[in-house]
């Protein structure tokens, strides 16, 4: 009797091809998700930096002390939404909705302990924690959630 390898190759292809496609789709989506994590984190970092950098030079010259503006938390929220806009097409909610629901706290005096994170700040600080829902359509193809929620954290202090 002669061996016929044709069937073995077909079975191997049938098993390996879907597996390879699943891995490829998963890797591509994870890569896209990593890029969005980077951009959203950068947006949060810039927002908190902008919020704590609000300083009046005349006041600084007079007292020598950097003070957070009373509206620092609102400024952080506003600039987080503005900087998140560049990523808007990939998000499952509008940048303004995400910024509105973000937990933004201003700690004008130092040292102080953040009740949410337990972190100790030795200078006035603005802290932002946001849940960012990201569309993950490729995950949906793999029967995983179509929206993945990322948690972004950022804290900045003036120097």
């Amino acid at each position, binding site marked *: 009797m002669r061996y016929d390898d044709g069937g073995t190759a077909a079975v191997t292809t049938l098993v390996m091809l879907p597996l390879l496609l699943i891995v490829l789709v998963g890797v591509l989506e994870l*890569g896209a998700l990593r*890029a969005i994590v*980077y*951009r959203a984190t*950068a947006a949060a*970092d*810039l927002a908190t*930096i*902008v919020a704590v*950098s*609000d*300083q*009046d*030079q*005349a006041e600084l010259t007079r007292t020598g002390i950097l003070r957070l503006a009373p509206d620092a938390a609102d*400024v952080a929220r506003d*600039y987080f939404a*503005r*900087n998140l*806009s*560049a990523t808007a097409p990939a998000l499952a909610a509008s940048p303004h909705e995400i910024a509105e629901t973000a937990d933004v706290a201003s700690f004008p005096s130092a040292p102080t302990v953040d009740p949410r994170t337990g972190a100790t700040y030795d200078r006035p600080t603005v802290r932002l924690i946001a849940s960012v829902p990201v569309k993950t359509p490729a995950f949906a193809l793999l029967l995983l959630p179509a929206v993945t929620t990322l948690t972004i954290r950022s804290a900045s202090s003036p120097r």
Partner: protein
Amino acid sequence: MMSWRDDESGMATLETTLMIVILVPLLFAIIEFGWLTQRWLAQDGVAMQAARYAGELGGDRPELRVYVQEHLRLVGIEPSRVTVEVEPASVSWRQPVRVSLRTDEQIAVPFLFTTSVAMRSTAVARGEVNR
């Protein structure tokens, strides 16, 4: 005598040709898109830093242009290929300032396509100094 049906010497060539036509574009697509994403994120980082610096300087100043060029070079992007826009050109205290960078990158995937992709990065900061 062996009939032509039993001669499998051409099969390996055929399989190799088919695999090259599939695998080479796949490999180049992974490399090209990975490279593009890396450039894009690097450009994003420069835009963020530049926006903050623009807020500190008070808008579109020659120092800002030099800063952007230096940082683009540091991340491996040729500055002459990047369009930089700063709005508004002059920013006062607490006013938003937007820095946008745009680069047209070429992507070439063998057997499939060669195209130009516009990479845009935008960051918004605000005037930091009360002059």
